[in-house]
Structures are given as structure tokens and as C-alpha cells.
């Protein structure tokens, strides 16, 4: 805005006839000067991310694309960092203060954080080469990379001072992570991630158990690195920006693995020191307010291209907000969020949480503001069109009511049994369009569709073995077997050679679950691409890195970001079956220990149910919300009075 031209000339008003002029006067007029002349023009703003410092915030050309005028706005790697960090630090300063809570060894933690950040820039150099024309990993006279490190140094120095007097109030502002995402424009990092990583590093000096886990974890990192067969230099992170790697090499694995552990440590530490003192009414209000802000900002971003740019830049969105009110693929509207599915889960969570707090506190009165906010959240849920979140909200709402208010054990469990039978039966009867036979093979068919197998011979009716469910014939075909992923190979073997004992085999089970919840295609793509060796199946390829999954095995789906659409499958890529089983056991123990606490039970199960069919844990804010929910047994303490 402020990087104005020195020229006394005025930028012409943009129209179809002078797009050429805009192409010849690049890097001269600022966005502010452009907007002054174009208050009534119709245009979109696209970012020219690799612009030089001089061209930051200046108009760098225009185009007529599909009869829509697009102007390019220069942004710069270094200046983006400074502007966005400054803005978010100002916002952070608004968190109320309390007495100081000293963090240990801050300076060493800052130094360690900076080393990790430097490693990140070196490891993802292709991503940064796309975002800066002068990016280089040669450290000799590299003012750009030193400036980046100094920016992070200044940020961490200021943040470390600010957090000590605010750390106990941070959790109140967790809901606002759905408004302020905190992803940098041209850096594959997130301010919240870096902040929690820093706090996590300080906990190493406080807790010996954290150091102990780190030692084992370093062993796991060594394992993940030794599993690299081919390095992959670039993966388009798209809507996962700031929370996933754009490269697959040893340095990127070291950065994302270590930083992920520290990030989790950091958040758990904040929960540990502050969650017990939390005022539930305040948190509830903040959840309602943030849900409402999400919806409001989504609407105004769709109305105006300039606001669309500003919300993207200053909220730190992973991708620009929806530019219209039209739904994605005809069924869901994501607004400012990268995923309609995850924000649908958030809206439903806010409504469920509101209900839960009311029941827990035995206080059903909401202020008129809260009623309005609740209605907006409900409308947001409808617009996101997350049917699963809506149904789970209804089921878990009823379940909570039964668990808390019905004293007779017999009636209570009868109702719960009815609830768990009623909804699936209604769904299968009225919404499911597949027969059991069809649904048990649909997943395999979808997997074969995206596999690189062109050599199959059709019969006289123009049908190939896949069409006739002769999958085993496909995988033993020498010409095509090398193009079949190991996971698909395993599923086909299980499908053909399992005992016929009226118990569905694993392939039929996954496929039959996937079909009615509309996941056959997505999970089919996953198994078509997921090609682990035994060791990577057991222990994964490292956290926040789906690059090897995406490009490690050639398939027909190699461009555009098609995610597994199940957080369970995503985390299986990261930590393997060992990680999934370990987490399930830990979760089971935690739930078992809180078995008489219906509030905790409901919230955790609400999340677990939705995570099976959504990618939410790949988004930083949803991941933190899940960690928060797992810690809620410290707030919702159930006893007879409650």
C-alpha cells in the first residue's frame, strides 16, 4: 500500500483496451494508487510472489483471462515475512497479560529454532526458487537468507518476551486460529507452528520425559531418512501450506520431524499449565465468535477482490478465499477456509460444545449475542454442506442427553443401542445406492482406475478383468503388476484368498464402509497410490510429509492435490501402522480412564468419527483443536453433581 511510485503520472483505469499498457508499466504504481483509479472497475488480484523488494505491493502487470481482468500484485519473500510477522505480533499483544511465567533457556531455544528454520529453507529450495527469483542456498554473501533468519530471530526474541506474560491465556484464543490461519504468503511455514515449536524446544530443558522421547524419536528420524530411495525436490503444497513439506529429502525430514515433535510438545505444555483454569463460558463465547467471524469474513471476501486479497494476506490463509458464493463441485462452500469439510466439522463442533457447556454448567441461558452467533454457526455448517458433521452432531447431541439425563441404566443403554442402529439403518435404507456386492468391490475398481495399467485386454463384450471383478488376474499379469501399488496388491490378495466364513475380509470391510460415506473414489485413489515397503508400512515416512506417497509410485493422479480424505490414512503415511495402533491404544486407555465422563467421551468420539473420513488433521488449526479436545478431560471433570 505504502510503496508508492515517485512519478506524478497517474495509472490509467483498467479496462479491456489498456491491458497492454499495464504489461509495459510493471513495478511502478502501488496497489493503493491502482485502487484510487479503479474504484469502479471489475478485476481480480493475483499475486506475483517472486517480485523483488522494490516491486513489493506494486502492480506488476495485468491480463485478460477468460474475459476477466486480472492484475498482478508484487509480493516478496523477505518483506512478506516482516509485514506478516509484525501484524501477527501486534494481534498477539492483545492477549491479556498475567503474572510472568518464565520459560527456561529461551536464548538457546531461539538459536535451535533458527538452525531448524535455516535447515527448512535449504531443504525446500525448489519451493523457494519458485517464490523468489534470487533465492539461493549458497550462504556466501546471501543477504536474502540472512535477512530471513534475522527476521525470525527478531520475531522469536519479541515473542519469547510476550508469551511469558500471556501463556496461560493463549488457549482462550485457540478458536481464532480458524480465522487467523497464520500461514506466510511466500514461505512454507506457519507463525503458530514456529511459535509452538519454539515453546516446545524450551520444554526440553524443563521435562526429562520430553528429552527421553526425543532420543527415541531421533532413532525414528534416522529410520525415516534411511528409507529415502529417491529424493523429490518439489511438491505443490497448495492448501496445506505451512504444515506440510514441499520436498522429500533428508534435510526436510529432519526439519519436519523435529519441528512437529516440538510443536506438539509446545501445545501440550500450554494445555498442561493452563487448561484447568479455563473459564468454559469464555471459551464457548470465543468459539461462537470465531465461527461467526469465519462466516462474515468469507462473505465479504467473496464480495470484493481487494478484501479477498487482504483477508488472504493478513489472516494468513493457506489459499485465497472463495471468490464467489458458488459451491465447490456443486455441493460445498469453503469461504476463507482451505477445506469445506474441515470448517464444517468446526461449525458442528462449536454447536456441540455450546450444548455441552450448557449441560455441564446446568445453565441453558444464552445472551442474545450468543444466540445470533450460534445461528450464524449453524448457517455456516449448512453452507459447508458437511453432511457427516451434521449427522454426527445430531447423534452425539442425543447421546450426550441420554448419558447425562437418563438415570435408568436399562433405558439409557436401550436408547443408545437404538441410536446406533437407527441412524445407520435409515442411512443405508434411504441414502445408500449400492448393493453389498457392489460396495465390496467398488474401492478396488477405483484403485485400478488410477493405476497405470493400459495393457489389459478386453473380451468380446469390451469388458476387461476389472469390470468382471477378476482382480487377481490383473495383479498376476506380469506387464501390469509392476504398476500396481503394494497396498492394492495386498487388498486384492485378501479379497481373493480370505476364508469364506461369513466374516468380511479386510478389503470388503474397508470398501463396504467407504461406499455409503462416499469415500470409494478417494480411498481408492489412496490405495492406488500408497506403495509402502514393509518397513514404511510399519513405521511410515515421517510426519507432515506426503511427498513420497504422492510421487513415489507413478499413477494417473499426479497433479492437483488429491488427499486421502481420511486423517487415519494420512497419519498412516506419516507414522505407519505402528503409529496408528500406538495412538489407538493410547486413546483407548485415555477413554477407558474417563469412561464415566460423558462430556469427554462425546467430544473425543465426535472428532474420531469425523477424522475417519476427513483430512482435517492435515490442517494446523484442526490438528490443534483435536489435541485440545484430547486434553478436555482436565476441564470436564465428571462427578455425580455434574
Amino acid at each position, binding site marked *: 500500500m505504502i510503496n508508492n511510485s*515517485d*512519478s506524478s*503520472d497517474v495509472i490509467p483505469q483498467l479496462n479491456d483496451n489498456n491491458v*497492454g*499498457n499495464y504489461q*509495459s*508499466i*510493471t*513495478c*511502478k504504481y502501488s496497489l493503493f494508487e491502482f485502487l484510487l483509479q479503479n474504484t469502479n472497475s471489475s478485476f481480480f488480484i493475483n499475486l506475483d510472489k517472486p*517480485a*523483488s*523488494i*522494490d*516491486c513489493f505491493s506494486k502492480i506488476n502487470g495485468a491480463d485478460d483471462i477468460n474475459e476477466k481482468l486480472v492484475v498482478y500484485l508484487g509480493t516478496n519473500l*523477505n*518483506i512478506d515475512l516482516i509485514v506478516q510477522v509484525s501484524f501477527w505480533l501486534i494481534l498477539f499483544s492483545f492477549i491479556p497479560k498475567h503474572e510472568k511465567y518464565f520459560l527456561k533457556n529461551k536464548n538457546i531455544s531461539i538459536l535451535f529454532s533458527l538452525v531448524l528454520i535455516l535447515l527448512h529453507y535449504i531443504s525446500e529450495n525448489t519451493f523457494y526458487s519458485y517464490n523468489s*527469483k*534470487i533465492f539461493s542456498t549458497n550462504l556466501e554473501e546471501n*543477504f*536474502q537468507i*540472512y*535477512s530471513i533468519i*534475522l*527476521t525470525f*530471530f*527478531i520475531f522469536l*526474541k*519479541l515473542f519469547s518476551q510476550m508469551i511469558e506474560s500471556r501463556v496461560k491465556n493463549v488457549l482462550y484464543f485457540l478458536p481464532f486460529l480458524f480465522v487467523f490461519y497464520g500461514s506466510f504468503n511466500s514461505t512454507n511455514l506457519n507463525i503458530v507452528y514456529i511459535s509452538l515449536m519454539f515453546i516446545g524446544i524450551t520444554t526440553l530443558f524443563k521435562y526429562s520425559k520430553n528429552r527421553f522421547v526425543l532420543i527415541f524419536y531421533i532413532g525414528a528420524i534416522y529410520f525415516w531418512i534411511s528409507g529415502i530411495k529417491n529424493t523429490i525436490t518439489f511438491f505443490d503444497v497448495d492448501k496445506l501450506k505451512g504444515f506440510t513439506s514441499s520436498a522429500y529429502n533428508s534435510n526436510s525430514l529432519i526439519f519436519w520431524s523435529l519441528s512437529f515433535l516440538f510443536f506438539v510438545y509446545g501445545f501440550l505444555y500450554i494445555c498442561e499449565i493452563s487448561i484447568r483454569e479455563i473459564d468454559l463460558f469464555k471459551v464457548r463465547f470465543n468459539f461462537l465468535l470465531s465461527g461467526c467471524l469465519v462466516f462474515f469474513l468469507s462473505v465479504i471476501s467473496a464480495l470484493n477482490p481487494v478484501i479477498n486479497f487482504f483477508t488472504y494476506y493478513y489472516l494468513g490463509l493457506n489459499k485465497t478465499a472463495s471468490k464467489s458464493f458458488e459451491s465447490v463441485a456443486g455441493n460445498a462452500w469453503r469461504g476463507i477456509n482451505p477445506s469445506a469439510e474441515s470448517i464444517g466439522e468446526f461449525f458442528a463442533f462449536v454447536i456441540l460444545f455450546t450444548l455441552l457447556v450448557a449441560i455441564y454448567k446446568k445453565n441453558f441461558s444464552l445472551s442474545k449475542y450468543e444466540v445470533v452467533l450460534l445461528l450464524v454457526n449453524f448457517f455456516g455448517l449448512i453452507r459447508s454442506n458437511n453432511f457427516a458433521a451434521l449427522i454426527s452432531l445430531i447423534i452425539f447431541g442425543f447421546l450426550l442427553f441420554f448419558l447425562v439425563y437418563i438415570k435408568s441404566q436399562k433405558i439409557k443403554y436401550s436408547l443408545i443401542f437404538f441410536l446406533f442402529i437407527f441412524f445407520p439403518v435409515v442411512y443405508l435404507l434411504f441414502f445408500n445406492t449400492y448393493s453389498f456386492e457392489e460396495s465390496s468391490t467398488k474401492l478396488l475398481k477405483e484403485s485400478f482406475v488410477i493405476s497405470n495399467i493400459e495393457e489389459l485386454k478386453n473380451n468380446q463384450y469390451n469388458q476387461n478383468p476389472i469390470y468382471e471383478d477378476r482382480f487377481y488376474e490383473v495383479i498376476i499379469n506380469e506387464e501390469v503388476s509392476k504398476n500396481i501399488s503394494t497396498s492394492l496388491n495386498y487388498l486384492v490378495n485378501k479379497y481373493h484368498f480370505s476364508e469364506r466364513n461369513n466374516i468380511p475380509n479386510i478389503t470388503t470391510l474397508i470398501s463396504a464402509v467407504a461406499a455409503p460415506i462416499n469415500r470409494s473414489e478417494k480411498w481408492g485413489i489412496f490405495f492406488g497410490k500408497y506403495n509402502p515397503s514393509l518397513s514404511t508400512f510399519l513405521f511410515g515416512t515421517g510426519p507432515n510429509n506426503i511427498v513420497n506417497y504422492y510421487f513415489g509410485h507413478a499413477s494417473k493422479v499426479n497433479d492437483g492435490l488429491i488427499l486421502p480424505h481420511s486423517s487415519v490414512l494420512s497419519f498412516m503415511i506419516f507414522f505407519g501402522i505402528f503409529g496408528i495402533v500406538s495412538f489407538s491404544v493410547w486413546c483407548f486407555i485415555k477413554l477407558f480412564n474417563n469412561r464415566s465422563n460423558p462430556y469427554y467421551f462425546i467430544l473425543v468420539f465426535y472428532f474420531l468419527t469425523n477424522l475417519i473420513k476427513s483430512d482435517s488433521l492435515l490442517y494446523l488449526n484442526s490438528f490443534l483443536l483435536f489435541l485440545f479436545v484430547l486434553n478436555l478431560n482436565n476441564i470436564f471433570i465428571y462427578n455425580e453433581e455434574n
Partner: protein
Amino acid sequence: MDTNILTICGDSGPMPDFEKIKSDPNFIFEADPNFSPITLFNESGTAITVNSWLECANYVNGGWVNNFVKISNYEELLFYGLLGTSLLLIVLNIYKKTKEKKF
């Protein structure tokens, strides 16, 4: 006249019609023996040498400049600015700690 053209290429009468030049694919810039060749750079550092005032004005109008070092200097200036800020923060921190120890 555009100030950049005046500064880089010098003054040479009325401003030509750049759009006309750009839209004519057969337009050839003729070298002017009285014009001292100037090397111009674009944003990514690509260099060209122009041999006439008209050619120079055309390129400068398209965003080319005569001093690429000037572009790199922004990075250097930013670095020193950030270095100064970092040192100031460290000094302030030390001062604060010393003050706290005293009282």
C-alpha cells in the same frame, strides 16, 4: 516525459508512441552512431545493450533499468536494517537484565 527515460536515456524531443512500436512485429531499432550504448537490466538481472535513444526509451518504458546493483542493494539494505534491529534488541535485553539484577 517519463522521469526514468529522461534519467537513463537522456532528453531527445517528444515521446514516441510505444504502443505502435510494440504492436509492430517488424519494427527494427536502428543503431544511432551518436548514441553512447547503454546496458539495461530487467528485474531478474538479464542485461541488454541499447544503441539508440528510441530503443533505450522503449525498454525503460517496459520496466528495464540501468543499474542492476541497485536492485540487489535492497537485499543488502534490508539485511543491515534487520541486523541493527537485532543488535538493538540484544542490547536492550542485556540492559533490562542488568537493571533487574541491580534491584
